[in-house]
């Protein structure tokens, strides 16, 4: 296997490990923006998310009752979907270059 492929696989393994096994133990305190919004009183303006009913809303997975397991599963799904979508996006970006090479 090429060295770069090994590097990418190793990096993905680290990402999956962090998303699955570490993220369930992350702080659940409000983040910087949420805290400022509460302190300044504009948190009330937030509307429910359009995808609040999504099966993976709020980094849980529908049907998984255990919150920590659900968060880890959501993390795994998120890393996989992000990797796939990014690969697809960059393939499209590069395809455009190859097209423009032909025309110029």
């Amino acid at each position, binding site marked *: 296997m090429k060295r770069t492929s090994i590097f*990418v696989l190793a990096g993905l393994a*680290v990402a999956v490990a962090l998303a699955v096994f570490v993220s369930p133990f*992350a702080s659940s*305190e409000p*983040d910087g923006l949420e805290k400022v919004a509460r302190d300044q009183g504009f948190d009330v303006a937030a509307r429910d*998310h359009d995808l609040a009913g999504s099966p993976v809303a*709020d980094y849980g997975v529908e049907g998984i009752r255990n919150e920590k397991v659900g968060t880890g599963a*959501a993390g795994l799904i998120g890393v996989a979907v992000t990797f796939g979508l990014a690969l697809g996006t960059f393939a499209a970006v590069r395809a455009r270059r190859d097209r423009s090479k032909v025309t110029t």
Partner: protein
Amino acid sequence: MHIPDGFIDAATSAGAGAVTVAGLGVAAKRAAVELDDRAAPLAGLTAAFIFAVQMLNFPVAAGTSGHLIGGVLAAVLVGPWAAAICLAVVLVVQALFADGGLSALGLNILNMGLVGGMGGYLVFATVRAVLPKTRAGVLAATAVAAWSSVVLASAAFALEYAIGGTVDLSLRQVIGAMVGVHALIGIGEAVITCLTVSAVLASRPDLVYGARHLAPTLELRPAELAS
């Protein structure tokens, strides 16, 4: 830092969306020129890694947490143009998890991808230019840029809020509060970004976009047999 629906009015959100689309268009054009066969999977890995680490909220002060944004991490690893695209992909996926409002997607990509990633890289390149051309120099520039990117992104939110905030507040109030807390969160951003970049520098320095100038110049040697 993910803006939900409702904080910023529709007109400002749409305006930010237009700026973001234009910015991503430029980034895609430039990234297409820079990316080779090897770089595309690395950019994918960078996006996936940032998604994972963004889930890891760390406590910063009483009742507040922060998490990596990753704009400078991506920019130092794969370049500022690919970084903006990486962050856009991460933010789109996060919206599926109901994190960051759909109407605020343009604002969020603008703040974290364009201001945080491309703006952060500008800080990185500026600081790197005045430091010694060593790994330590690259890491120091990375730390300064990572911290700055979080503060810049938080200031960008405050400006957007001043333009289209739905609850009337002065710019000074919002920018003071945002920059204050994000100056702390930025320390975490700098630490995580430096740890990650130094790990990649230790294993595959040739893959770090922001350290290309450290690569030894090619030299001619007699061919080795059976290599």
